[in-house]
């Protein structure tokens, strides 16, 4: 006889599967994944007295401060413990040049956190990636300082004596168009330079190797899935292969297109933002492919050399649409509609 009195029936609402994973642990993983790229930029821009590090720390600090301040003033719960503001701050710094003034970071982080994130309701409610939106505003507001790319090996101007050595980014060289521009690029930078980060560019985007390391870590920890980055990078590769200028080795061209600019940084860390990308896997594939197409279009036809930032922001705006029309099939649902359609 079962003693029914002994059996406790616990009724609780779903979900019943518990996990230790929460926003904080996910954000911590993202921070860890960003560290290789950050360390590489500290090393590459080493003549700048760890400026890469201080800019990133300042940006993260600013974001946390804005978030805390806004929620305090609006009498909302304190959310800075979830570390999402830290991630936004790090990403914002990593898409800025090493020479970016600190006050500019403060303005950008205000826009990222207060306007893009908090005004729409805080974490999970923003429809644009905060870091990228902050960068887009900074580029629109202060085009000059935001596109002053230093050669990574340039020497630090001690007391302002030496001139800053600016270097064209690989994509700026490619912007000239045609096989000549590509030949000039291959002479300036080898594919290895791009892979290791010996190129001009924003803090985080230069080293493909370090970004791939971070991406691998995120994949292993299951923080991101492969769908968006693979669709994004794959689309850029495919389009570049087809669009390679005449007289250029198309595979070499693809290599340069993939490793130059912010593609890897954007595909791994920005496009995969949970709040601003579709929920379903097919939706994510479409999202990634859309990002890839827009990036290629801007690189080839636009007036900017690089289109990762804008392409992700544009696709962010389509996320609700992708979620609306690409829905998962309900498990166990009868295939009635299909049969009916076939019968007709």
């Amino acid at each position, binding site marked *: 006889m079962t003693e029914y009195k002994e059996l406790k029936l616990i009724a609780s609402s779903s979900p019943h599967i518990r996990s230790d994973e929460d926003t904080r642990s996910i954000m911590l993983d993202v921070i860890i994944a960003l560290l290789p790229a950050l360390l590489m930029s500290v090393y590459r821009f080493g003549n700048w007295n760890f400026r890469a590090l201080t800019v990133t720390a300042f940006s993260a600090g600013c974001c946390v401060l804005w978030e805390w301040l806004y929620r305090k003033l609006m009498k909302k719960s304190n959310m800075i413990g979830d570390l999402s503001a830290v991630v936004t701050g790090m990403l914002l710094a990593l898409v800025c040049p090493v020479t970016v003034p600190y006050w500019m970071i403060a*303005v950008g982080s205000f826009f990222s956190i207060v*306007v893009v994130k908090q*005004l729409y309701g805080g974490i999970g409610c923003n429809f644009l990636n905060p870091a990228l939106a902050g960068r887009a*505003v900074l580029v*629109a*507001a*202060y*085009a000059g*300082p935001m596109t002053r790319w230093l050669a990574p090996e340039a020497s630090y101007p001690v007391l302002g004596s030496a001139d800053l050595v600016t270097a064209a980014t690989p994509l700026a060289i490619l912007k000239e168009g045609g096989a000549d521009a590509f030949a000039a690029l291959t002479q300036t930078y080898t594919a290895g330079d791009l892979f290791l980060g010996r190129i001009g560019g924003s803090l985080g985007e230069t080293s493909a190797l370090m970004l791939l390391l971070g991406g691998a870590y995120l994949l292993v920890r299951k923080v991101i899935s492969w769908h968006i980055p693979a669709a994004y990078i794959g689309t850029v590769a495919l389009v570049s292969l087809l669009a390679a200028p005449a007289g250029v080795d198309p595979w070499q061209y693809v290599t340069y297109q993939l490793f130059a600019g912010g593609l890897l940084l954007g595909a791994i860390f920005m496009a995969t933002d949970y709040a601003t990308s579709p929920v379903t896997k097919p939706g994510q594939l479409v999202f990634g492919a859309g990002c890839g197409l827009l990036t290629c279009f801007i690189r080839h036809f636009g007036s900017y050399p690089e289109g990762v930032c804008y392409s992700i922001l544009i696709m962010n705006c389509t996320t609700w649409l992708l979620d609306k029309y690409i829905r998962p099939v309900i498990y166990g649902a009868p295939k009635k509609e299909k049969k009916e359609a076939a019968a007709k």
Partner: protein
Amino acid sequence: MNVKKQFTDGLLTQNPVLVQLLGMCSTLAITTSVMNGLGMGVSVIIILTLSNIFISLLRKIIPNEVRIACYIIVIAGFVTCVQLLLKAFLPELDKSLGVFIPLIVVNCIILGRAESFASKNAVGASALDGIFQGLGYTAVLLVMCFFRELLGAGTLLGVRILPESYTNMGLMTLPVGGFLCLGALIAAMQWAMNRAAEKRAAAEKEAK
């Protein structure tokens, strides 16, 4: 005739730009400097008041079927007057406002007030409505101009306000700055109105 209600309606609760969302095009386009905003605002106040008066006077004569066309003719007459005056006495302002002065003819605020107020109310009320609605429009323009000129160029009315070391935020004088500014103002207005409504509801509850 409730003057006080008309006043708060025009400036706050029925503000043509922030609440009725009328006249967006000129609001976004010309609010790059305080001078522009002032010129545009005053022009609209004059035109709106005069056209309201005349449409109210003619409201019993204008046939219902062709009323919009009649309103447009009245409005266009006053717009032409104002434009000629501007050209004669303030040619600089006329140049910087450009096409937006003639475009007042099709500005929704003026047509909207003619349709929804002047065609149904007496002359006095219509005149006041024109003045208050025009003031509401001008107030919003000036607030937007203030932020856009100050942040975008570091000046107010062409006079340098911020120190020379201030880096101009070029974004603010671009169209995107106008959209951001207007969005923020509309949001602030909604927030304030919701708060006022909540307070009123709470007060009513207490009174009961």
